């Protein structure tokens, strides 16, 4: 396997989607290629950073305001007929 082939299979390898033969070939290539091993490690680090820090922070007061607004919007149509009674 060449480095270009490894690069193409990186996501499939990380996702566990390679068939057994391809996975064995990829792992054999990684064992002997510092460049591809570094690329894989850096990609895994980037994914981990995205998992750990990739969400936009939501303040408690914003969360509470949105919930109140949603409840208000959904309750309003049900309240409307009673207002006519």
């Amino acid at each position, binding site marked *: 396997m060449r480095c270009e082939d490894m690069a193409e299979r990186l996501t499939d390898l990380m996702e566990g989607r390679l068939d057994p033969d391809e996975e064995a070939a990829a792992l054999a290539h990684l064992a002997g290629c510092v460049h591809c091993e570094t690329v894989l490690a850096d990609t895994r*680090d*980037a994914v981990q950073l*995205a998992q750990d*820090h*990739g969400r*936009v*922070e*939501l303040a408690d007061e914003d969360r509470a305001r949105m919930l109140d607004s*949603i*409840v208000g919007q959904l309750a309003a149509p049900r309240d409307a007929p009673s207002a006519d009674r």
Partner: protein
Amino acid sequence: MRLAAEDSAASGLRHRIETLFVAHVEAVYNVAHRVLWNRADAEDVTQRTFVKAITRGEQLRDTRRVRPWLLQIAYREAITVLRQRRDVPTDPGELPETPVLDAAPDDAAVASDVRSIVGAALARLSPDERMAVVLRDVEGLPMNDVADVLGVGVSAAKMRVHRGRASLRDRLATKEVR
């Protein structure tokens, strides 16, 4: 009696909304914000997403499908807003600068700075690649669900994730965040 019944119904409705909201609001808001880059618009989209979801309701019974379904609504709503407005900061130069870590920051500052760095790196991905990475890696959706949310085939979704991860890796590689 009628007032008591109405109170009970209102309480039940609020409980139902709150349960769904608490479980998914961060993911919904995150998807909206990663499209729109604006808190007020992201909040509007988040509210519309939950209102639509509760109103339609029937798809909420399948608990495995709730998260991708909500994120699909949020993504489509955000894209609609994006198309409607004209002041989108699409030029990377208009996006926030990437902060540099202090020499010896405390843990909270490190977490905040890392979040900023990751956010800035995500901001500089193409919109398609960014949303694929957000859905797969930040929100943890299976690839099939990523494809459903984006409205593309699984192969296309996988390619976007693949390219997005490569871009993210290259942009984070020069930052001291590890």
